[in-house]
């Protein structure tokens, strides 16, 4: 007799009248209605950490939304920037441009839906061991980022349920020499996440390598996705908009 495979819950809205159980990699969530008409929320992870909340409700049912959110909160919210280190080096010759897809980690947000509002109720990561910090630049002037080693993937559907989304990165090299690209750093709070069933995507990123007088620098800008059949994730944290950003080239 084969071992039963746990089916993970999908992204999307769930209406709860009595109880709901959601399963994620290494995290289980249970929502129950109690005798007084309130709902109780319980999250338990594989290390035994438990989060409990009471959701007072005047109606007989509540609606929640499970959606991917930006990977900024675990172990603590310290930055808006993400540092993606690619598993393969991409060489871009002088004047060339290319685009490829990378897997970008995500966290999971649980939102209480009170149309038209979606209130941030809880968040967690299903892969705490890969969520780390990194520094881009020098210790005194550098930028603290969330640091992830990410693979380059082939399809927009190569995201992993509850663990990662896919992001398209467009690189343009306007320098007078070829350049090896091993990483990208950008403010992820400019980017929106989208989901459809088990898949998720992040707004694209355009990275331009430029030269001003004698200084070589990187300019990054967010490019919104245009697919209409994907659902936009609610934002967990306050959005900040930076149309484009310049950083020194390492």
């Amino acid at each position: 007799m084969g071992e039963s495979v746990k089916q993970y819950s999908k992204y999307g809205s769930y209406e709860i009248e009595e109880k709901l159980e959601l399963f994620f990699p290494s995290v289980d969530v249970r929502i129950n209605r109690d005798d007084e008409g309130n709902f109780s929320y319980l999250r338990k992870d594989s290390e035994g950490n438990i989060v409990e909340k009471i959701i007072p409700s005047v109606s007989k049912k509540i609606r929640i939304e499970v959606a991917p959110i930006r990977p900024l909160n675990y172990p603590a919210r310290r930055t808006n920037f993400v540092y993606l280190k690619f598993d393969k080096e991409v060489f871009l010759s002088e004047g060339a441009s290319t685009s490829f897809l990378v897997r970008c980690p995500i966290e999971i947000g649980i939102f209480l839906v009170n149309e038209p509002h979606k209130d941030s109720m809880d968040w967690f990561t299903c892969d705490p061991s890969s969520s780390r910090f990194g520094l881009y630049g020098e210790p005194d002037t550098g930028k603290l980022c969330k640091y992830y080693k990410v693979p380059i993937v082939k399809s927009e559907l190569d995201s992993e349920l509850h663990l990662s989304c896919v992001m398209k990165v467009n690189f343009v090299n306007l320098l007078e020499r070829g350049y090896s690209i091993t990483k990208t750093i950008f403010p992820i709070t400019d980017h929106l996440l989208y989901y459809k069933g088990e898949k998720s995507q992040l707004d694209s990123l355009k990275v331009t390598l430029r030269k001003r007088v004698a200084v070589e620098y990187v300019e990054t800008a967010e490019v919104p996705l245009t697919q209409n059949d994907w659902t936009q994730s609610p934002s967990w944290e306050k959005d900040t908009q930076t149309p484009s950003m310049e950083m020194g080239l390492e």
Partner: protein
Amino acid sequence: MGKRYADAIDGDGVGIMFHEIFESLDSFEIAGTEFSLFNLVIGTIIMLAGFAVARISKSLFNKYYAPVLPEHTAKNFGKMIYFGIIIISFLVFTTSTGIDFSGLLVAGGILGIVIGFATQSVVSNLISGIFLLIEKPAKQGDSIELPDSGIAGSFVDVNAFSTRVRKFDGTIMRIPNEKFFTSNIRVLSDSPVRRHETTIGIAYKEDIDAAIEVLKKTICSRIPYVLHEPEPSFRVDELGDSSINISIFVWHPKEDWGKVAPILLKFAKNALDDAGIEIPFPQRVVWKGD
């Protein structure tokens, strides 16, 4: 006299009545300067109004503008507004009452020298405070350390004569501005990241590379606040009396010293224990001659 008051009241001029009452009183003289009671009352009203305006202005500033300014700047601006209005009120008061300070200048000059010597440290602290406000060696809330004094804590504010630092044990340390200004100040929270280091010893018989590999793997996987870029680094620091001492260097976000430093050595020790790598006790080999 009684008829004049009656006329004033009849004319619905209460103000005129008071004016005439005060004007009718004799003026008096202090130190050669003639004062009238009317002018003193007006001057007092000006001063009281000045205090009220200063307080209201400061409250309005604190309510509407201070929240968008850095805390330290807002506090200093608030003080400037308050005392600026009071000083202006005082100047108006002296003008309206006819007080002439020129007579005090000669005496004040001599007195100033005497007071200057007596209050040298007070003036020094005041001037140092002004320079500290200009230089801004730290922002409010920054973690700082004065290595010479052994004081470490959170920078609170700069006042007229002293600077306040909230020590990490929660107590407030008042430091004279002059001392603070001339001290070496180490700002611990100015950079986005900080480095912490510790040392652990392994037995001479152990494989150094294997020990470093075990330490690195454990630190990276078990302490989420340790930066992976730059990654933890290790250095064989010393061939000690009893052990090979390995220094461990890890970077962490500036806010998270407390989540890394106190547990780093514990995780390092546990990692070596789990891998069966000996951490030797201090030992001495005694050779007995035949």
